[in-house]
């Protein structure tokens, strides 16, 4: 005997199909967002690098300033200059933060709509990419609760634990996962952690 009436099964099937469509859109968003975030982060770092380099050169040109009596004034000018530079930096950091927050908000709002594996793991990966390991751990645990067989939550969990300096827990987590599942990625990560320990 079926546990459900056929019409109820058809309804549930249609609902499930819809959910799957949402999930795949969520995955797509995550896949689109992640590279953008990575590229944006890379560019921001690169810009600040070039700026620093230009600034490094500038003083060299000014390194041989005409010796004037205005030494004190000069120092003051430098302070003012530094302040200006710092103020110029601030908006960029804020901008970076706002991009990050915006993306995170999107992922979180998608998660509140659909508490699926894909939405949860996207948030975990996102936090991990921003080196927010505590949050990455929190979300990886959530993701693993939704789908116990996926290796990605365990891998993010282990990587984050390792990044926080807790290699023992990281290895234990991977060993636990590999007891019940197969995953080349998890195996490689475990071997890497083991090699790191023996070194």
């Amino acid at each position, binding site marked *: 005997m*079926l546990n*459900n009436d*056929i019409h109820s099964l*058809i309804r549930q099937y249609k609902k*499930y199909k819809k959910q799957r469509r949402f999930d795949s859109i969520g995955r797509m968003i995550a896949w689109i967002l992640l590279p953008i975030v990575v590229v944006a982060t890379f560019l921001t770092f690169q810009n600040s690098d070039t700026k620093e380099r230009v600034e490094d050169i500038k003083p060299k040109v000014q390194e041989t300033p005409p010796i004037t009596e205005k030494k004190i004034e000069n120092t003051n000018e430098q302070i003012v200059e530094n302040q200006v530079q710092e103020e110029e930096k601030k908006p960029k950091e804020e901008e970076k933060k706002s991009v990050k927050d915006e993306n995170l908000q999107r992922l979180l709002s998608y998660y509140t709509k659909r508490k699926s594996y894909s939405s949860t793991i996207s948030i975990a990966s996102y936090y991990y990419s921003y080196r927010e390991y505590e949050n990455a751990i929190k979300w990886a645990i959530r993701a693993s609760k939704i789908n116990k067989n996926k290796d990605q939550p365990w891998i993010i969990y282990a990587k984050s634990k390792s990044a926080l300096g807790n290699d023992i827990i990281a290895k234990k987590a991977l060993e636990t996962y590999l007891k019940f599942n197969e995953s080349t990625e998890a195996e490689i990560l475990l071997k890497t952690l083991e090699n790191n320990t023996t070194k």
Partner: protein
Amino acid sequence: MNQFLEAKNLFKDDFDLEGYLDSFSFEHAKTELLRSLNSPDIPLIFLLGNPGYGKSYLLKFIEQRADAIKIAKFISLPYFTEREFLENLVEIAGVQAINKRYDLEVLMKTLKDRLNPLEYTIIIDEAQLLNHKQMELIRILSDMRIFKFLLAMHKKDGHKILAKSHFKSRTNSVIYMEALKKEEIERYITNRLLSRNLSNIVSAFDSSDINFIYKISQGNFRLMKKLLSALFEIIDVAQQENLKKYSKIREATLTMAAIDIGLINVK
């Protein structure tokens, strides 16, 4: 009878040995089990596997088809008191339960005197449910070589028990049952349906359907049978209600079957 209804009955979760599954895991476990059961040196055999991998089915197979094995008792669920257990065993030895006296030593001695060493086997399914006292009794009886024990239990629990020091060093045999492979699932479905001349249904399955069944059941024998049973019932009901879209084997009906047996959770 409608052919889908007939197909549904073929995949009921029972111990119909006609539909024996000749998978690698089954065959390997069966051969190892028979070897251990026939060996005069192995008093304790552990059959380990995840729930639904076919341990109970294999035990039934041994009980019904392995004629050379003398089975004193087949316990499907080990809910018994030590007293009941021992009294039952003594009766097997042909003694009238010694006035129902519960004296462990006397009972043991009677059994040892009456029976040839390891002549009889006691099969216990779901042995992870045995409590510490029961397990200790089994250990003593097998140590004294009064009975051979075949204990089937979940893999995790089996590992815990085997890790205990008093089981570690003992002469025992540990046999594992693994998940089915995709090809084995396909062969099982085909053979089972063809045994009832349901070739129409066999040809209705394509490789993506088999993939779906394999993935969703994760090679689990019991889940695979439940899924197929639900699938055929859905199709049968859909045909009766003239729901043409759901009257065939396809992703929709397979998904509905998976929802029905709880493999897919729709919130």
